[in-house]
């Protein structure tokens, strides 16, 4: 498993760069991760990220877009605005979680 250094934090990631260790994430790190992919975090982004982190802790897998919308209460359309083009992957990356695997 590769180790990378972001903003002085040494973190474990998979080959693509997604964090592999739930506890190596912090809100400060999220700001840096977001900046790397051109996203500036606002309260609306944080609502999604917080849901993702909590849901992962409960379910053991990363929520799909549909789950973030139905369980997290954030409309799909808004998610595409907050995390353009590939919202599910981008959210997961910033939240320090694996890519979601669900089909819908």
């Amino acid at each position: 498993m590769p180790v990378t250094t972001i903003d002085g934090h040494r973190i474990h990631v998979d080959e693509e760069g997604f964090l592999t260790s739930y506890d190596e994430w912090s809100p400060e790190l999220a700001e840096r991760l977001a900046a790397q992919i051109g996203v500036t975090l606002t309260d609306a982004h944080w609502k999604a990220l917080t849901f993702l982190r909590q849901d992962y802790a409960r379910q053991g897998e990363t929520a799909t877009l549909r789950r973030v919308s139905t369980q997290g209460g954030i409309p799909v359309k808004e998610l595409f605005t907050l995390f353009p083009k590939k919202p599910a992957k981008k959210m997961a990356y910033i939240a320090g979680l694996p890519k979601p695997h669900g089909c819908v």
Partner: protein
Amino acid sequence: MTTDAGPAIVPDFDDQQNSGRKLAIICSKGNLDMAYPGLVLANAALGEGVETHLFFTFWGFDMITKSRMGQLKFTMLGNTATHLPQGLGGLPGMTTMATHQMRKQIAGIGIPEVPEFLDQIVASGGHLWACRMSADMMRLGLDDLYDGVEDIISAADFIEKTDGAQLLFI
């Protein structure tokens, strides 16, 4: 196991690469089991940032007809993949039972019903088009169709709109 890290490893979300990639899906079947493949693939493509267009034609028109879209059915008849004797499918009530069972299974894995699935596709930026010939055959107008349908267009219009797209016929 841990080597010293060089430059930061950041996922390549490749926003640029997909600009220009398009997917066109022609939905021509109105059976419950044939509705889902197109919807799932459209949803997946949209989630990857791919411009996606769906064209509903022939029996696929049921998927976007307000009065029918919530009542698509699944039949065992002619479907050997159910692995049950074909004769069973012809018994009274079997289509209702098979449909009920499939709906339960689909809901059980968190997949929405067809109308709600279309909501999600539209919210994700997907384009829905109704086939002109099917609308004429069934004497239906835009008012009879799901609100997210952008227009009733001819096959030629659809081909024009999806110039350069990868195409799926279901």
